[in-house]
């Protein structure tokens, strides 16, 4: 197609479109949010409908420390990406690694909590409605943390090998969007499970 013959008005502004990676990630986050919404609605709807114990108020205690770990990992990943954009790969590697450690701590916290609930309190996914909804919602979130950690760890390995450079900042920003989403969803899950549901 040749448009040279046309004397159409020349575009006044340069042709700029949003970044594919970011738009794609926002779409994925929208889809994930819809999935989480359904699980959160189910959790809220079934609060207090269990026909047998244990009940949440008897066995749950808010994991404050691990929540702080996860939420602060959003800050560390933000700084990591900023450092990479500025070309400071060493600082990037440090902050990125810190993010991985904080995420892993959170996951360890979930594991410890589940171990306690299963072996000390006798609450499994089959026990009652609370068990079903609790393990499903918290487990769905933990699954997303795990997926995020796999992504973050592979970047950490690449960065240890010296393969992460300034030009990768845009891609890692997309990955950090996902991590922010995982953290933000935890705020909702925490509120629903440990505050409203108790």
């Amino acid at each position, binding site marked *: 197609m040749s448009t040279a013959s046309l004397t159409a008005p020349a575009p006044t502004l340069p042709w700029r*479109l949003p970044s594919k990676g970011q*738009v794609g990630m926002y*779409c994925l986050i929208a889809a994930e949010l819809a*999935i989480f919404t359904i699980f959160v609605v189910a959790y809220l709807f079934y609060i207090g409908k269990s026909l047998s114990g244990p009940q949440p108020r008897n066995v749950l205690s808010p994991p404050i420390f691990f929540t702080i770990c996860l939420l602060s990992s959003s800050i560390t990943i933000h700084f990591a990406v900023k450092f990479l954009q500025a070309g400071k790969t060493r600082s990037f590697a440090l902050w990125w690694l810190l993010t991985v450690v904080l995420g892993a701590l959170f996951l360890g916290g979930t594991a410890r909590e589940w171990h306690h609930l299963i072996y000390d309190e006798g609450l499994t996914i*089959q026990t009652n409605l609370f068990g079903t909804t609790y393990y499903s919602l918290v487990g769905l979130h933990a699954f997303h943390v795990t997926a995020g950690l796999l992504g973050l760890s592979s970047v950490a390995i690449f960065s240890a090998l010296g393969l992460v450079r300034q030009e990768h900042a845009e891609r890692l920003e997309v990955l950090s969007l996902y991590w922010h989403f995982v953290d933000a969803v935890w705020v909702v899950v925490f509120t629903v499970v440990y505050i409203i549901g108790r």
Partner: protein
Amino acid sequence: MSTGSIAWDATAGTTRKPLVETLHDWVTTVDHKRLGIMYVLFALLFLVIGGVEAIIMRIQLMRPLNNFVSPEVFNRMFTMHGTTMIFFVAMPLVFGFANYLVPIMIGARDMAFPRLNAFSFWMTALGGLLLYSSFIGGDGLYGAGNAPDVGWFAYAPLTSQTFSPGHSTDFWTLALLVSGVGSIGTAINLVTTILCMRCPGMTLGRMPLFAWLNFVMGGLVILAVSPLTAAQLMLMVDRYMGGHFFDTQAGGSAVMWMHFFWVFGHPEVYVLVIPAFGIASEVIPVFSRKAIFGYPVMVGATVAIGFISMSVWAHHMFTVGMTSGANTFFVMTTMAIAVPTGIKIFNWLGTMWGGKIHFRVPMMFCVAFLFQFLIAGLTGVMLAAAPFDWQLTASYFVIAHFHYVIVGGILFTLFAGFYYWFPKVTGRMYHERLGQLHFWLFFIGFHLTFDLMHVPGILGMPRRIYTYEPGRGWEIWNVLVSVGTLFQAVGILVFAANLIWSYFRGAVAGNDPWDAWTLEWTTSSPPPAYNFATIPEVHSRRPLWDLKHPEDPDWKYE
């Protein structure tokens, strides 16, 4: 990509590749056009399978107290027919058209994420194969019957281990989970492609309506199919791990499943019909020789439909016993959605008004669509009134209503799309006479089946019964409805024959057989793997018009 595409062009028509190599090319392709074609062929295969299931049901219902199939088989047939037609015919058809056409229409060389595109297609294909594997593996160790027989919306607690032993329901839920992931992947890809891959000058206000409507469809899939995925996960927790989401004996709620399913189920109708509107919005202007009437209103109405469609779901549940407040809300929203839909109908009529209408096969299907979709919408407004719905829900009136939407609305425009873009995809013209024969056979069959199907519904015939007593006044209607399916089946055969014959023997079409205006007609037929040698630049909604009429270009008036 680029090296592959050069090789493909160079060898086309001169030397034939070995079959294995060709197959390998298709299986490993990430080209949006090939994936689009595979989506469509996959869907056509399942259309035949789903059609055979429908015919089995219609033979069984043709006479009272018939024994063509057992009640168990009848349950499997209506479950598989519904699941197949929605998830493995309509969705892949819509995705196939979008995949093939959207990048070319917006002047891009491929989708935003080509590998995600291939992944999504193969997930959908895997879902279809999984669903049909149930005929082999569904019995499990229980001898509990093979294919799923829980109905296409699989209400709890029928899907629990107690009432559905064996694996048939597991095949159903896994198939929908897997294909749902594929659908969400394609939707993400479409939305990103449309936002980030438009050629210079292609502002959102200049995008072809087909691209606009698929953009809305992508957003709807993201927001509507995800809840279905979540609900399938819950069902799996219940079935595999002994959870209690939908287990009423442990305090769970069967109504929750209904809500979760229909939160997906109703927007799904619009997921399918909005791209069909997109096809109509491309075909009607070209064959009326006029630009689309009311472009901005059309876009606005589509977005409005998208939003409203997410707040109407519980009109499927009026008989469940919701509060009168909830009933009123869903009556109002459901009736409200008729407003933007009506606006669209007037836009298409306004486009045809005063135009020079060419009654080629695509236009014939579109005109039929206009009338049929209007009637489908009117019965929809009738059913939206809760008291009316209490009387007729789960009767053949409802079946007739939604088949009017899906066949009379969606399938008819998809056929229009097939004939309209066949020359672009294959480089050959379809056979006009055979196309007309297909139209008339299918048109007669459709009206025989689905017009008359309303009547036994009003006379009280419930859906999903495998047989009925004589003397209720349903017999003659059921005979005529079944005869109609025969016309439709022959119509589909003519359609298939036309596609195959024209692919090999059709007249060479050239780049722009319809004297059309959107970018896909600028490139060769079939388009090269890279779509455009140089990325085009557009200045109006009809770039080809500008090119053909430099003395009177569209951008002067937009």
